[in-house]
């Protein structure tokens, strides 16, 4: 589903990704782990299409199509979703309004009919309930005054409603207490599907106890330096990233 070949990326003249290769198959949950500054978040932004990153070389193929030339919204319409580490606030725009706007924008891009209001409400209610998001929260401005945990749940709610084919979770566990973490992980797990792939970016093993990955990749100095099964995460938890830092240096 996702194939990245020899990706080289700079920001303000500083090289962040350095010939990164990565393949994630449909139905797979791939975890990316690595020390701070290894380029994990940059990878997620570059896949989603954030402007300020300069791609010098390589390609990102989604279902065989190179998406590097596409606008972020075009990538979204093709099923790329990024759950942000720090979700943005949009004052004055109620969460409901925002949800309706994004769902219909993607439907429009795929030439599908707009959702009717009752159908939209039905979907939101069902998805919100699973994530313990109450109606009052949906009426508030998007992410305005939300706690860290509420913001992360809102990201997963959007993911559930948009039904993307390729989901990136960028440090979704940061700032979450154990209860919130469980709710979020459960939300993700119910979305696991043979046709959908996940890229779970995390610094800690903790999240991977709840979202059990099929593959684990270790990232250092802007490239994947080691890949393995879920047991690799446990090994890292025990030994830390020290070895990889040295390797990077």
């Amino acid at each position: 589903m996702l194939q990245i070949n020899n990706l080289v990326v700079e920001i303000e003249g500083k090289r962040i990704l350095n010939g990164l290769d990565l393949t994630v198959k449909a139905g797979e949950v791939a975890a990316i782990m690595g020390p701070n500054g290894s380029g994990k978040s940059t990878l997620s932004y570059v896949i989603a299409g954030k402007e300020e990153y300069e791609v010098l070389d390589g390609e990102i193929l989604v279902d065989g199509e190179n998406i590097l030339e596409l606008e972020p919204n075009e990538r979204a319409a093709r099923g790329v979703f990024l759950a942000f580490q720090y979700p943005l606030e949009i004052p004055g725009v109620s969460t409901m309004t925002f949800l309706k706007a994004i769902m219909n924008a993607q439907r429009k891009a795929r030439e599908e009919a707009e959702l009717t209001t009752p159908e939209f409400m039905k979907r939101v209610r069902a998805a919100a309930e699973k994530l313990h998001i109450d109606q009052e929260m949906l009426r508030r401005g998007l992410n305005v005054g939300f706690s860290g945990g509420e913001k992360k749940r809102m990201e997963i709610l959007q993911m559930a409603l948009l039904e993307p084919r390729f989901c990136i979770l960028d440090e979704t566990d940061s700032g979450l207490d154990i209860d919130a973490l469980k709710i979020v992980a459960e939300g993700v797990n119910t979305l696991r599907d043979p046709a959908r792939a996940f890229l779970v970016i995390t610094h800690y093993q903790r999240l991977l106890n709840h979202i059990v990955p099929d593959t684990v990749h270790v990232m250092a100095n802007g490239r994947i330096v080691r890949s393995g099964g879920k047991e690799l995460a446990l090994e890292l938890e025990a030994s830390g990233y020290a070895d990889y830092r040295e390797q990077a240096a």
Partner: protein
Amino acid sequence: MPAVQETVERVKAIDVEQYKYGFETTIEMDKAPKGLSEDIVRLISSKKGEPEWMTEWRLEAFRRWQTMREPKWARVNYPPIDYQELYYYAAPKKNPAPKSLDEVDPEILKTYEKLGIPLREQEILAGVEGAGSRVAVDAVFDSVSVVTTFKEELKKAGVIFCSISEAIREYPDLVRKYLGSVVPVSDNFFATLNSAVFTDGSFVYVPEGVRCPMELSTYFRINERNTGQFERTLIIADKGSYVSYLEGCTAPARDENQLHAAVVELIALDDAEIKYSTVQNWYPGDAEGKGGVYNFVTKRGDCRGANSKISWTQVETGSAITWKYPSCILRGDNSRGEFYSIAISNGYQQVDSGTKMIHLGKNTTSRIISKGIAAGRSENTYRGLVSAHRKASGARNFTNCDSLLIGDKCGAHTVPYIESKNASAVFEHEATTSKISDDQMFYCLQRGLDEEEAVALIVNGFVKDVLQQLPMEFAVEAQKLISISLEGSVG
């Protein structure tokens, strides 16, 4: 709007041709030469069939105006206006009317389409020949059942709603008592000019204790052709009455006049309330900023009675230059003034707008919520005055001015003046300036919105507090209009 289309079609089927003919002939006869003189003022007055006192009133204004100078303090730039080069009565068309919609600027048509305006109505707004001149259009509105019902209901309630010219003839005592009592003849250069040469506008009188049964809209008033330039509106809410008045239209109407200098006066007596809402969408000029309307407006409300209330709500998206400060004089004890404004500028537009809250009475309160949005190469200034006079004990004001910048070539400025001569007055002022952040944009785009949809969404969130003040249907249209006004502001 679809209801209007139906009515338009119905009446068009009857006899638009007749209107067209009669109208063309009249105009030929009424054409006055360029420039302004006492003779022109007299001509306007006599064409309107005005009484002698009105003619004298106009002449006094004209004499005053000759001694006045155009104000230069606003943060706007425009080439000098040659007032002797303008037509003050029945200006002939500069360009022949388009023969069909094919000849109309495609940009304007796109806007109509986005606003969901039916085809027939588009033709009328664009001034297509044969689609009905503006006289016919308004006659159309006037002749249909909707408006007949509307007028009957108003009559039953005792509300007078007519053109100012008709009011001068039919209700001279009311007009004489109130005209110029809020905006005096010598108030300012543009208001004085208007006093001398105004050709039409609205008149509303709501009698004591009456709650006007419906929103009054200029849309439903008989308007003479080419009267948009110097409009004069006078609204009087007698003791304990209430009226809500809507001015303007979200659709950009074709207009021949570059200079607009309107005057609006509101008078609220004891316990009365006036709510005045405007959506202004005059032609802003082409891509280089040429040819847009200059809008120099004086709007002022007088809370003359105790416990009275006047509320201004405006959505300003059009005009090349906007110079406009809807104000409240809080004369009655416990009276309240409100100003809610959304001013959007894009392209090369220049907006200098705000309000004045003059606290004269005891325990008077006022509230100002201003949202300025600047995009493109535009300049957007909020200019406001809040003042408490010596006797205004217990006066309170709350002001909130927020500016939002889109792009890096535009400017937002806030110029608040606060004067207090009473120690017990409490004035609060809050102001913020923000920019739509790249991160916010990226977040919206990542969810599938395109750039224009993202900006529209963020801006609509920004102006929400003010949109909520508009009557429901107007608010929906205004929201659409805001999105359209900001098109092309990103990327």
